[in-house]
């Protein structure tokens, strides 16, 4: 394993940890809006770390550009859907919070 491989391994494991944090947030947070907050940030940060780790290993500039494009599209998709679901939950009568703080 070269230095590049070790760097990739570290970045990929950090990304996997962020995905784990996103899943725990999805399962443990009390209401819908905080779950949106957990998912759209933690998951895309995890995907960003994994994409960064794979970017180091890329053979050509085209492969690297494709990985970066995947990440940017994932960011746009998460931002759009997070906003849409939050807006939909606000204008319908879903319970905002189980225990009123």
């Amino acid at each position, binding site marked *: 394993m070269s230095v590049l491989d070790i760097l990739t391994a570290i970045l*990929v494991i950090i990304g996997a940890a962020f*995905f784990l944090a996103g*899943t725990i947030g999805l399962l443990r947070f009390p209401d819908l809006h905080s779950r949106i907050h957990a*998912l759209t940030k933690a998951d895309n940060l995890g995907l960003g770390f994994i994409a960064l780790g794979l970017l180091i290993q890329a053979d050509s500039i085209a492969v690297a550009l494709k990985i970066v494009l995947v990440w940017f*599209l994932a960011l746009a998709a998460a931002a*759009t*859907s997070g906003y*849409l*679901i939050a807006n939909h939950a606000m204008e319908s009568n*879903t319970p905002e919070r189980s225990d009123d703080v």
Partner: protein
Amino acid sequence: MSIETLYVAVAIFLLLNVLGGLIRILIGPARGDRMLAAQLFGTTGVAIILLLAEGLDRPALRDIALVVVLLAVINTVVFVRFTGPPEDRAGETGP
């Protein structure tokens, strides 16, 4: 231990992550919760496909990752536009 083994191991870990997120779909109180968990699986699936493309040395899989991430929004948009709660969407859909 080669770096490819690590890729596959992280892919297995992300698959178990999906398995944990399925619980939220099963118990989720509101419809938005279930849709949100499905959105999570889009992102996780993209990460799994990227890792498999590198770990199995198959560069065609990156195109699949592009398609998956492009189509992840469609289901959410359809959900928001067409399957609202009955009291709000009785007539015409959309604001």
